[in-house]
């Protein structure tokens, strides 16, 4: 299968006063289309930075990130924001919902911003709302919902644009274990049913176990890599 994402010898250096901090330290990584990759590692190991670079939210200091074989470094700002709007769906730990909009309005927001709001895209969004189990909550405000419901909104918002890549940063960080399981099953559905490529940053081993491959970062490099189905169980 083709590589959906390729990260080639990427460095990301932040300056803190006179000191330099290497968030990513020459990391290389290939992610296949339809793969579910879990990224673990201690805080400061570069997990979120990696996710931001793949999502074209930030640029590497050196090295290259390819999406569908296209180097992001060759693209201008317009093309980059087009990738962010059309190819990549983001899911955050803090949900990042707008408090004055209903669930459905939050979910439709990226479509409206992209100028892609139409009867057809809104109908698809409503299908997504049903698929994540929010039909009865679509006109509620975030403050009227539980953490699990808010994260369902977050997932539906990411899916509504029909992204081929889903980037999730600690999506279950604020949820109890039963709700986490439901949310992670939903993400797994995205991979299984819609063949979406999923990259999830997570510190919890139980959540990471949803990945086909689990990598652990340390000091901005890949320290360990575990293929999920290599173990002989029982």
């Amino acid at each position: 299968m083709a590589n959906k994402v390729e990260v080639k010898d990427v460095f990301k250096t932040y300056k803190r006063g006179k000191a330099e901090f290497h968030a990513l330290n020459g990391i290389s990584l290939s992610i296949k289309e339809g793969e579910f990759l879990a990224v673990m590692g201690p805080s400061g190991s570069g997990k979120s930075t990696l996710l931001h670079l793949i999502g074209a939210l930030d640029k590497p200091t050196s090295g290259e990130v390819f999406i569908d074989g296209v180097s992001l470094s060759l693209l201008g700002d317009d093309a980059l924001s087009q990738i962010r709007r059309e190819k990549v769906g983001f899911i955050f730990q803090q949900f990042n919902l707008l408090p004055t909009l209903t669930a459905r309005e939050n979910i439709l927001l990226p479509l409206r911003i992209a100028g892609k709001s139409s009867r057809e895209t809104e109908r698809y969004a409503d299908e997504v709302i049903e698929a994540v189990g929010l039909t009865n909550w679509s006109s509620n405000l975030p403050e009227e919902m539980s953490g699990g419901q808010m994260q369902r909104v977050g997932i539906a918002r990411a899916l509504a644009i029909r992204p081929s890549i889903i980037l999730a940063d600690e999506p279950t960080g604020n949820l109890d274990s039963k709700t986490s399981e439901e949310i992670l099953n939903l993400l797994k559905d995205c991979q299984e049913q819609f063949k979406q490529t999923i990259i999830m940053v997570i510190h919890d081993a139980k959540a990471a176990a949803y990945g086909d491959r689990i990598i652990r970062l340390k000091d901005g490099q890949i320290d360990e890599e575990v293929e999920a189905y290599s173990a002989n169980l029982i």
Partner: protein
Amino acid sequence: MSVKHGLLGLLARKPQNGYELKNAFDEIAGGFWDVNFGQIYSTIDRLVKDGLITASSEDAEGVERRVYQITQKGIQEFKDWLDKPSAKVRPLRDEIFVKLAFMYPFDKEAILQLLAEQRQLYLAKMAELTRKKYLLSRQGGSRDMLMTDLLLDAALFHAEADVKWLEHCEAKLRGFESIQREEALENDEIGLDQ
């Protein structure tokens, strides 16, 4: 669950022969508990001797087969057992711990390597258990599926605890090493001063 109480529980549902009991036990244990026919039959003999079950013969197409039935005493024993929490804490007989005890303090790098490999193995197992759980969740919910799901959860929580314990071991061994190194450095400095 002991084999004894497992069999009593199964016979409380309906009378069964040894073969049926073995299959039903395997189903409940969800593949996590390897019980062979020998254990099943020796437990059955003990239960008959203790008056907790009785045996009767059944003619199955010319072949005589023993069918077992739970007695009133057996039902009481099973209910008493069911109502009590398990007092025994899971035994900690981890092979890796024995290895550690023999390796330390000879080869710290080899220990850290062993711990990391073991942790990766548990992580891969967790992924496989998670896969089973996910596939189960796609099949809709029945009572038996819920029980299997809960058993898979138990296996996952234990594997997670193992992963955390191994990480903890790695961190402590590294920490202990750096303390030793600092002490050695301090001793060197003292040595230089003299």
